[in-house]
């Protein structure tokens, strides 16, 4: 089956403080139609920028190399009306809904804007569709909500509005960029449930970006783990959880406190996460890796296939099965 989205060797440099800094290095993955892919990483890993590159929302002055193909079309080369058409196929749900909705316009205006402007749908029809979309995301009394302004709705509701709006344009790929991080826990689980259900109903592909490995595992088919601008492991979600191949993935799995067993001390990864341009040569995770050898530090690590997935670690085969063992606490 040909993949819907293909990212090949994507490298992105941003202009930070007037200097070009690499934030994504040679990233490669693909998403099939109807598949949900999780993109997990800490801050600086490059996960958000990957989504922005796919949606062509990178900041001014960004240098991009590599290929991003959507349904066979080269996304990075698009311009003008073709680019706008691409945007209707790829819908983005952002992190902070309150910041991402224009506060001086009503919800109705926000939701129906692209229908009216791009598709020339008449206003009453567009509002009808918007009301229907609001019902699907579980918002009561949609006609009342449509007449309200964003500041009159709670964060959780606004995020549902965002999701409903994203689905209105009937996209084929949904990019969810940490879309529940800004919400309280209850809203978080509600929004996730709605997102998951609607996605499956419509057979949408989804790229789900988060720092929460377990959350990704709950809603995604496969998961990519990113570190310092590179993908370090790509596996099916449950395999990644049960049997991580890369020391970083394993550390992420271990770092999440388990409520079923007592722990004397929370497990944390020593050091701090780095961005691509701050990373050393050789394996980028080596400085924080408990299993690193001199070979690791001197060789650039390549992606290799293993157990139906891919991993960027020369010692993965050797370390297999030993990564989740309890470690001595320093």
């Amino acid at each position, binding site marked *: 089956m040909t993949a819907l989205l293909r990212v090949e060797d994507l490298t992105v440099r941003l202009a930070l403080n007037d200097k070009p800094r690499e934030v994504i290095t040679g990233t490669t993955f693909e998403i099939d139609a109807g598949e949900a892919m999780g993109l997990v990483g800490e801050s600086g890993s490059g996960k958000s920028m990957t989504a922005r590159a796919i*949606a062509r*929302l990178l900041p001014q002055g960004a240098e991009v190399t590599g290929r991003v193909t959507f349904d066979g079309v080269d996304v990075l080369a698009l311009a003008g009306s073709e*680019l*706008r*058409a*691409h*945007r*209707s196929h790829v*819908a*983005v749900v*952002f992190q*902070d809904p309150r*910041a*991402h*909705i*224009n*506060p*001086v*316009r009503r919800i109705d205006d926000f939701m129906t*804007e*692209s229908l009216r*402007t*791009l598709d020339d749908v008449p206003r009453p029809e567009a509002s009808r569709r918007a009301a229907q979309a609001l019902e699907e995301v579980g918002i009561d009394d949609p006609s009342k909500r449509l007449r309200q*302004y964003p*500041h*009159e*709705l*709670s964060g959780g*509701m606004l995020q549902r509005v965002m999701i409903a709006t994203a689905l209105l*344009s009937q996209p084929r790929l949904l990019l969810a960029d940490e879309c529940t991080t800004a919400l309280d826990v209850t809203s978080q689980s509600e929004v996730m449930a709605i997102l998951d259900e609607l996605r499956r109903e419509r057979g949408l592909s989804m790229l789900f970006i988060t720092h929460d490995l377990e959350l990704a595992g709950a809603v995604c088919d496969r998961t990519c783990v990113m570190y310092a601008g590179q993908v370090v492991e790509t596996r099916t979600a449950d395999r990644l959880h049960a049997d991580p191949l890369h020391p970083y993935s394993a550390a992420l799995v271990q770092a999440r406190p388990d409520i079923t067993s007592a722990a004397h001390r929370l497990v944390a990864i020593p050091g701090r996460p780095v961005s691509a341009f701050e990373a050393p040569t050789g394996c980028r995770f080596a400085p924080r890796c408990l299993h690193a050898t001199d070979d690791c530090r001197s060789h650039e690590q390549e992606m290799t296939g293993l157990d139906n997935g891919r991993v960027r670690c020369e010692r993965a085969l050797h370390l297999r099965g030993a990564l989740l063992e309890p470690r001595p606490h320093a």
Partner: protein
Amino acid sequence: MLAFIVKRLVMLVVTLLVASLLVYGSLYLAPGNPIATLTGGRAPSPQVVAQLNAQYHLNDPFLVRYWHWLVAALHGDLGQSIPLHESVSTLIGQRIGVTASLVLLTSIVIVVIGVGLGVVGALSHGTIDNGVLISSTVSAAMPAFAAAVVLQFVFAVKLPWFPALGDGNGLLDSLHHLILPALALAASSVALVTRVTRAAVREELEREHVQTAVSRGLPRRTILRRHVLRNAAIPITTVVGLTIASLIALSAVVETAFGLNGLGSYLVQAAQNKDFAVVQGISLVLVVLFVVVNTLVDIAYALLDPRVAIGSRAQ
């Protein structure tokens, strides 16, 4: 929204009442007795004294006198100018046209040049933007009377393109006479408006909700119009409104510099001549205009930004 407007209008009336009280009451702050102040220190004859006593109800308690004055003012009667033996309202009526035209012309200059340059500066980079910044810094440093003097010298004396003084006759000639004054009055205000506009538009361009609009594939022109400029209009309208309000008092300086026969220059002359009835009358008119414009700015702000009037009712 309606409740908000009503509230603001009530505040307007209260403020005007208190302000008018202050304007009227300032007469009594003057050293010496009210009659001496009203006649400007000129020795009045007994008939004039009696007339003044009756007219100003000077034997009545203060608040009663104030009330009479206010009621008369609302009917358009602002009293008599003692030195000139003419009704204050007539004197004001003769001059308000000049001031109104000047303020109107200046407002147009401020909006067109100020907002225009600000938007241009915000949407461009490099040389054009720098040019906008530099020119606005230069004009910001020119207070009205300074700009007046410089403009008079350059464009009326050295290059005789415009008249230096006077009102002119007829529509076109009057306009010709108003151009330099309008530019002088606009100079420092334009700079502020340009800066605020540029900053507001720049800030809106960076906002996340604009990113959302981009991500939905909306055309750039639509985004600029419906999101960037629409939202930036809030601070821009406020600063333009407040700037125009300030013109009301500042016109006095420019009118004096250019010898225009407007309310402002007349106010200054009346103050120098101690023609107190005229000072009170013109002050009242100017204060009313100033407060009305400020209230309109508040209402416009609420109309543009729904968060103000409706308030947050997040559930």
